[in-house]
């Protein structure tokens, strides 16, 4: 329990996000003597992976909705201990909208909004920053996907874990990716009738990566456990199938699913209608990179680029977890730990050692690369997007407008499509429609530079800079 020599003026680290990566980072840095401010939008730590029910709901067995609960207990107890020592300050319900870099020596201002309406501003000063901002779900459009009752797979899980609620009685879980299994299993365990799990990847694509996958028996056991649970509950597992349309009059009533051929096209005549009032759908995850982009961090594809120490190319800014590439909780924990150790070493001059975490990171990354290859969104998904399918949900831009922008008006990138159609100009700022617009336009998904990570009241913007934190 040694403390820094200059406790009062110790250099401070802001960790943004209290999911697995942020918690691991905050704990690693705090244990090594750093003063950490852990800033998170949630009411409780945990992020999406360890999202907890509201305390007032009195869940006595929340682990029934979770995996790797012991890891969570270790993180939770570690956090409580560090808060007690004063090394970690945990700011809950604080939504970071911008991280401002002052100059090489003055560090950073982390601008947040809090309060019931998330409109009360506050500023945290820090000498270094770890971005552990996580990811959000990618959903590719199909006819009917805007009907109430259609929800992202992660959203269904978040509502279940956090609010202990189900949307309806009968669910279909569809799309692609490893998230679908725990979502289907969770919904079924909580009392939903899961009519089918519809996964566009097929067994052959798994077999192609069998060697790498079999080198990770723990993960395979986890996956097999979900499959066994779903089979026990008589959930139909439909591999190499897809949802082509959601039906309903004002609310979801059924979906049409269809088999896919070898090329990922819908096999004619294979369509069948499945009645359901919930469709939980997801096609993978996208890293949250807004704060990194505002800071000027270099990206690689859709993720923040980092070196072996999880450092970004901006001095004193680290990134860890899904923000640097989607890879699951184990990878996030390893990356967070490394980032925390590295940041503490640089802030306090302590020796660095994170060999075990680096090994775990390397193994996880290898595994994830195989998963990505298995669960790539199917080719030809755009063929099922009818012209009147809404692609940009906020601005209600139909696919026809995007096709026209590309085919007739000559747009060759998402930005031009946006200017011509307003796709991506609404509330969510293209977070939801970005992959679909890129796919329909036949261009790469480019990161969209957004000045702020969330909506900010004009009054807060007008006063920004006046109310610097007291130090």
């Amino acid at each position, binding site marked *: 329990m040694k403390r820094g020599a200059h406790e009062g003026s110790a250099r401070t680290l802001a960790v943004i996000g209290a999911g697995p990566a942020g918690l691991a980072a905050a704990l690693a840095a705090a244990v090594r003597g750093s003063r950490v401010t852990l800033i998170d*939008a949630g009411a409780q730590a945990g992020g*999406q992976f360890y999202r907890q*029910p*509201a*305390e*007032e*709901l*009195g*869940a*006595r*067995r*929340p682990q*029934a*909705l979770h995996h790797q609960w012991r890891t969570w207990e270790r993180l939770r107890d570690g956090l409580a201990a560090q808060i007690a020592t004063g090394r970690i300050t945990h700011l809950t319900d604080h939504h970071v909208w911008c991280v401002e870099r002052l100059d090489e020596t003055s560090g950073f201002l982390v601008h947040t909004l809090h309060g*019931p*309406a*998330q409109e009360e501003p506050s500023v945290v000063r820090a000498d270094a920053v770890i971005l552990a901002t996580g990811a*959000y*779900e990618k959903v590719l459009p199909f006819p009917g996907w*805007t*009907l*109430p*009752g*259609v*929800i*992202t797979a*992660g*959203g*269904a*899980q*978040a*509502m*279940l874990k*956090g*609010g*202990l*609620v*189900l*949307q*309806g*009685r009968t669910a279909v879980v569809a799309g692609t990716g490893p998230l679908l299994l725990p979502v289907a299993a969770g919904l079924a*365990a*909580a*009392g939903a*009738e899961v009519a089918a799990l519809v996964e566009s990847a097929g067994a052959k694509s798994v077999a192609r990566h069998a060697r790498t996958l079999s080198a990770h028996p723990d993960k395979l056991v986890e996956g097999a456990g979900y499959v066994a649970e779903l089979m026990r*509950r008589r959930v139909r597992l439909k591999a190499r199938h897809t949802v082509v349309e959601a039906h309903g009059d*004002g*609310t979801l009533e059924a979906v049409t699913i269809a088999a896919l051929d070898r090329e990922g096209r819908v096999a004619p005549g294979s369509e069948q209608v499945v009645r359901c009032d919930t469709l939980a759908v997801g096609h993978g995850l996208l890293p949250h990179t807004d704060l990194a982009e505002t800071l000027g961090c270099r990206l690689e594809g859709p993720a923040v680029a980092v070196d072996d120490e999880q450092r970004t190319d901006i001095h004193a800014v680290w990134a860890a977890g899904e923000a640097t590439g989607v890879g699951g909780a184990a990878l996030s924990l390893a990356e967070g730990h490394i980032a925390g150790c590295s940041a503490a070493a640089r802030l306090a001059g302590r020796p660095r050692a994170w060999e075990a975490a680096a090994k775990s990171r390397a193994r996880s990354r290898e595994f994830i690369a195989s998963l990505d290859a298995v669960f790539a969104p199917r080719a030809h998904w755009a063929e099922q997007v009818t012209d009147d399918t809404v692609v940009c*949900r*906020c*601005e*209600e831009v139909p696919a026809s407008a995007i096709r026209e922008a590309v085919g007739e008006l000559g747009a060759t990138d998402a930005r031009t499509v946006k200017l011509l159609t307003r796709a991506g100009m*609404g*509330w*969510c700022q293209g*977070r*939801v429609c970005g992959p679909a617009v890129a796919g329909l336009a036949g261009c790469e998904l480019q990161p969209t530079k957004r000045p702020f990570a*969330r909506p900010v009241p004009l009054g807060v913007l007008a006063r920004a800079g006046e109310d610097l934190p007291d130090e």
Partner: protein
Amino acid sequence: MTSKRTPLDLVRAEPGPAHTATFDGAQIAVLPGQTVAAALWSAGVTAWRTTRGTGEPRGVFCGIGVCFDCLVTVNGRPNQRACLVRAEPGDDIRTQHGTGHDDAAEGEGP
């Protein structure tokens, strides 16, 4: 394998006593700690917004504050994300039509 199982049973929840809010004037029971979205789902409501353009119904989509599809008017304030905002006792929750500002004329500035 009972079809009556609920998420609350699954985690052996012992919530505090429910409080009351209203949705479009009708009383709904809310468990303490639940968001507006969770409270509405519990009350069997899955849509509480109509879009600005075509007036289509919407409810929760992403569930984590990213997509803004679950916007709702709470106590006269439009554009609250139902998946993030907690439902408090006595809240007046209303379907948000369009931008919500037509509905909020009484009491709220532009």
